[in-house]
């Protein structure tokens, strides 16, 4: 069961328009994150933020297999997941900027963005906090007898929390339609996965729960989509949960401001240069004549414009009133 997608396989047979949408989403995420980083360093975004630059293929490939009514749960490094599931960048920026118009009316910030209307059950500031909640979403799907699925994103570091084990076992015991997507970017803050994950493989742990486990090159978006789609199909057809581990890499520090004494610039540059998920996908699509260079330039440009509009919306939005803090704790308050 512990297999990896064959990367010599022909390009996955999805339509050209889907491929374009996937590329566009990856570019949107990249630009969102870069601009979020800038706004943070300009001290316009309070608190702290964790960016996903470098991990776009893993996230977009995973979410591309989902339907609008499927659920996802995200992490502290959540912007990408939320965008990939369809969230609107303008409400996201508004939230990051602490504005009243944000997804959470300024109460959540970077680590707590959700859009329940899109099945986004929320980012989570507690590492590994999403696993048990996804068990509940899966149980709910089962009890309501729909054919939705739930996808819970987590990092290599999160795989060491007890919640992973409990949730994986429960998902398997109840055959819940859950896909556990581990985005293994090598690091949990400062610690390397090779040191902290005994045995080194999170996908291999699937075997302990008698479920399929896959490892996939997380810089190749179509590989990710193919493997995750397999897991989604299984879940949707009542076959129960799977674990997918994507090998990925973050270019930025753990959080913005991280001194990164635990790795070298050379290491980061090697990834950037040889394994950048967007560059790789662009090259592939051009090679297969799905798109041309002009098209790429156009997308980057269009997306950038949209992002600026979204930032503008956030910047121009009003702050919450101080007393808004007292609203919304209970259903009738």
């Amino acid at each position, binding site marked *: 069961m512990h297999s990896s997608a064959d990367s010599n396989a022909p390009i996955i047979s999805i339509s050209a328009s889907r491929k374009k949408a996937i590329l566009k989403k990856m570019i949107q995420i990249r630009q969102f994150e870069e601009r979020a980083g800038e706004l943070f360093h300009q001290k316009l975004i309070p608190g702290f933020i964790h960016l996903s630059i470098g991990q776009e293929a893993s996230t977009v490939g995973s979410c591309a297999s989902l339907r609008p009514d499927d*659920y996802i749960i995200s992490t502290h490094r959540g912007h990408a997941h939320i965008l990939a599931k369809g969230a609107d960048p303008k409400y996201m920026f508004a939230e990051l900027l602490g504005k009243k118009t*944000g*997804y*959470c*009316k*300024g*109460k*959540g910030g970077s680590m*707590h963005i*959700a*859009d*329940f209307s899109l099945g986004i*059950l*929320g980012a*989570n*500031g*507690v590492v590994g*906090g999403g*696993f*048990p*909640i*996804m*068990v*509940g*979403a*899966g*149980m*709910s*799907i089962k*009890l*309501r007898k729909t054919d939705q699925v739930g996808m819970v994103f987590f990092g290599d570091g999160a795989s060491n929390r*007890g*919640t992973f084990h*409990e*949730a994986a*076992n*429960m998902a398997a*015991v*109840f055959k819940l339609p859950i896909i556990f997507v581990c985005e293994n970017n090598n690091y949990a803050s400062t610690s390397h996965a090779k040191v902290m994950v005994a045995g080194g493989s999170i996908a291999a742990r699937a075997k302990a729960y008698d479920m399929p486990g896959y490892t996939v090159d997380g810089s190749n978006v179509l590989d990710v989509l193919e493997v995750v789609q397999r897991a989604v199909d299984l879940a949707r057809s009542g076959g129960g949960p799977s674990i997918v581990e994507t090998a990925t890499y973050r270019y930025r520090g753990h959080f913005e401001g991280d001194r990164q004494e635990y790795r070298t610039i050379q290491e980061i540059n090697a990834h950037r240069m040889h394994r950048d998920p967007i560059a790789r996908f662009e090259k592939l699509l051009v090679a297969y004549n799905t798109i041309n260079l002009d098209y790429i330039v156009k997308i980057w440009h269009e997306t950038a414009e949209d992002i600026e509009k979204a930032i503008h919306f956030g910047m121009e939005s009003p702050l919450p009133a101080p007393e808004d803090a007292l*609203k*919304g*704790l*209970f*259903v*009738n308050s």
Partner: protein
Amino acid sequence: MRTRQISVSKAIVEALTEEMQRDESIFIIGEDLVSHGGIFNQFKGLPALFKDRIIDTPISETSIVGCGVGAALTGMRPIVDMHFADFVTTAMDEIVNQMAKIRYMFGGQAKVPMVLWAPDGGGISAAAQHSQSLESWFVHTPGLKVVVPSDPADVKGLLKAAIRDDDPVMFFQHKKLFGKRGAVPEEEYVIPLGKAAVKRKGKDITIITYSRMTSVCLEAGRRLADIGIEAEVIDLRTLKPLDFPAIAESVQKTCCAMVVHEACLTGGFGGEIAACIGEELFDYLAAPVMRIGAKDVPMPFSPVMENFVLPQVEDVCACAEKIMKRKRK
């Protein structure tokens, strides 16, 4: 209103049966529910009635509570059985950081209609890890409601209200009360959360209590009456929302008060109530507000020590007499 005498256990089963029949989105999840009907037989008969909606789980409390949260967020109304209240300790992140905060921190997008049902309290020689009364942690956690019923009628009415509530509710069921019997109305009723009940009328002193200590205080009330002290016993029933007006009304009349709970004294909910009375009713007070709680140690196993640690009728009487002496001075 026609009533019958039934036990707390029976009241629980009635409440659950009625609510689960009414609303298909309710389900109960936890350990040992199906074959045992719950570790205290509290769900007896339900598995036969609601086959797929009573769910036995592995021993994974963290995920069980999380499962309730996720199901509540996606259209269900879960009741999570904690086995023993002490095991909330294995799911505090799920209770405090998720269940309580999700609605607020996501800007009101979601609701979390779930009941965390937890048998608490001591008195059965279950020792340090199976005897705790932990309600005050949750009163201190914005986003939760906290219910602490004391008799069959309240259990039934409050459990129904908790299930129908759209917010997360911690329902602490004292485990020594399962066998307690009392009059319960025959027709359907719901007791709104946040309403205290005066369980004994009296003009001399206000005794504020909840959960199992209610019967201890009522017995103390009877004994105090014998020596000419008429105590008013208020059973709070829910700690959050708190019915402070009920407390104020009584204290304005009696001009003195004491709080009795089974949780250990220091940092217990008694401090909150005493502080509120001190703040709001300072000019009425003719004597200090006193508190009684378990002594500040883990629950010891041996009954002689456990009885000593837990508040007893004598302790309540002695404290009330002391206050009355001050008041009369």
